[in-house]
């Protein structure tokens, strides 16, 4: 008789993509999940000439911190800004109150502009606009931006919600920006969803990943 190996659908658990097979917390059955680490990938969204990228699930008290990573964000329109906002419940206004700071290092391919500057045009003082995290990004074929955004305890009903981000940008003027953004959503209502968009035109391409930090 031929040897038969145990196949994925022979196990007494529902298969979940890219998840490991584990014993459950009572050690009396199988479950799927992540192993050996605290940075848990929750969702990946890939832009394809997208007006927005919305993360509307898995944002709750499960994790104390959420991290978004931006990989090769490429705008459909030249010289625009990539920004984000949050909302509560199932609302879609994305106009929460933000106080934030924004400073930037810059240097052009021609050797100009080397310096660090506080960008008061990019910060917000109790503003409700989308918070810019990538500015002046170009849309030549090879131009894009990458970075990360940390959000702390979005589900808190007690505290404001702190965030900070760092992005690296090839700008429309053929130069490099390194931007540092931080602030808080000045609300004690739980934030349940985040939206990313370009200020003009669509997100031509790129990936945004959301992780939970356990």
């Amino acid at each position: 008789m031929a040897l038969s190996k145990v196949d994925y659908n022979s196990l007494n658990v529902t298969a979940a993509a890219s998840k490991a097979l584990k014993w459950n917390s009572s050690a009396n059955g199988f479950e799927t999940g992540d192993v050996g680490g605290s940075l848990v990938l929750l969702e990946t969204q890939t832009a394809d000439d997208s007006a927005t990228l919305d993360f509307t699930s898995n944002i709750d008290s499960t994790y104390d911190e959420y991290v978004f990573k931006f990989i090769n964000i490429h705008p459909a329109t030249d010289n625009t800004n990539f920004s984000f906002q949050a909302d509560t419940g199932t609302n879609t206004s994305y106009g929460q109150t933000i106080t934030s700071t924004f400073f930037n290092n810059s240097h052009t391919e021609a050797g100009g502009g080397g310096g660090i500057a506080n960008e008061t045009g990019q910060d917000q003082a109790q503003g409700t606009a989308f918070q810019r995290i990538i500015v002046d990004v170009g849309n030549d074929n090879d131009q894009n931006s990458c970075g990360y955004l940390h959000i702390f305890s979005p589900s808190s009903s007690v505290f404001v919600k702190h965030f900070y981000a760092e992005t690296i940008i090839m700008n429309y003027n053929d130069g490099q920006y390194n931007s540092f953004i931080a602030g808080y959503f000045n609300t004690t209502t739980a934030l349940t969803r985040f939206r990313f968009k370009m200020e003009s035109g669509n997100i031509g391409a790129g990936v945004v990943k959301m992780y939970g930090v356990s």
Partner: protein
Amino acid sequence: MALTKFNYNSFDVTPVASKAMGFNSDADGLTSISPTSMVLIKTLTASSDSSLSFVNGSSDVVLDSTYPIYLFKWINIHPGNDSVHFSFNGSDDTSSHSYNITKTSTHFEALLYEGDTGAAVQYNTAGDLAQSTGVQSLGRGVGNDNDQATSGELWLFSPSSTTYVKHFMHRDNVAHDGNGSFSNRISGYFNTTAAITAIQFTFSAGNIDAGKIKLYGIKDS
């Protein structure tokens, strides 16, 4: 007939050393899964505590050569007093820890008040240290209104080295007592070749009223 147990090679997947078994990206087959490299070691939750300390070998804390990099994260640290500095220090003792390691550091900050005043990015000489054994401030001027707190992170590199000084770097955001957003960046080194065996967090005055601090180890393999 006796039950035969499945062995490591009984499954329809090629075994890979030190990997876990899981489902592939289409959820229609088995594959090997890599454990992630960031491992939660210990969580401390404040409840009007004068300090929170992570001591190697105590209460399941690991702070030695097991990991080359350690990462502390704090979430909504809320002070008992208004306008106080969230701070840390290290110890090289193996028992009865004193927190007084010599440090040299830099500190810069970006700030903006809710009234759209004070916008600046600046070096802060009040927050740096030059061969000081005192605490290193992290988030400065944390407010203690009910909704005010600070969140952030501190990276500590190779604390067990007996050859090199020990570098650290930090980033946070603070709900400032003056009602503003202050984002701080501190970096520096413990100027000692003795192993750092413990890290302690305090406020410059009063207690840590609430919040949690987590310690992670970052694997190098």
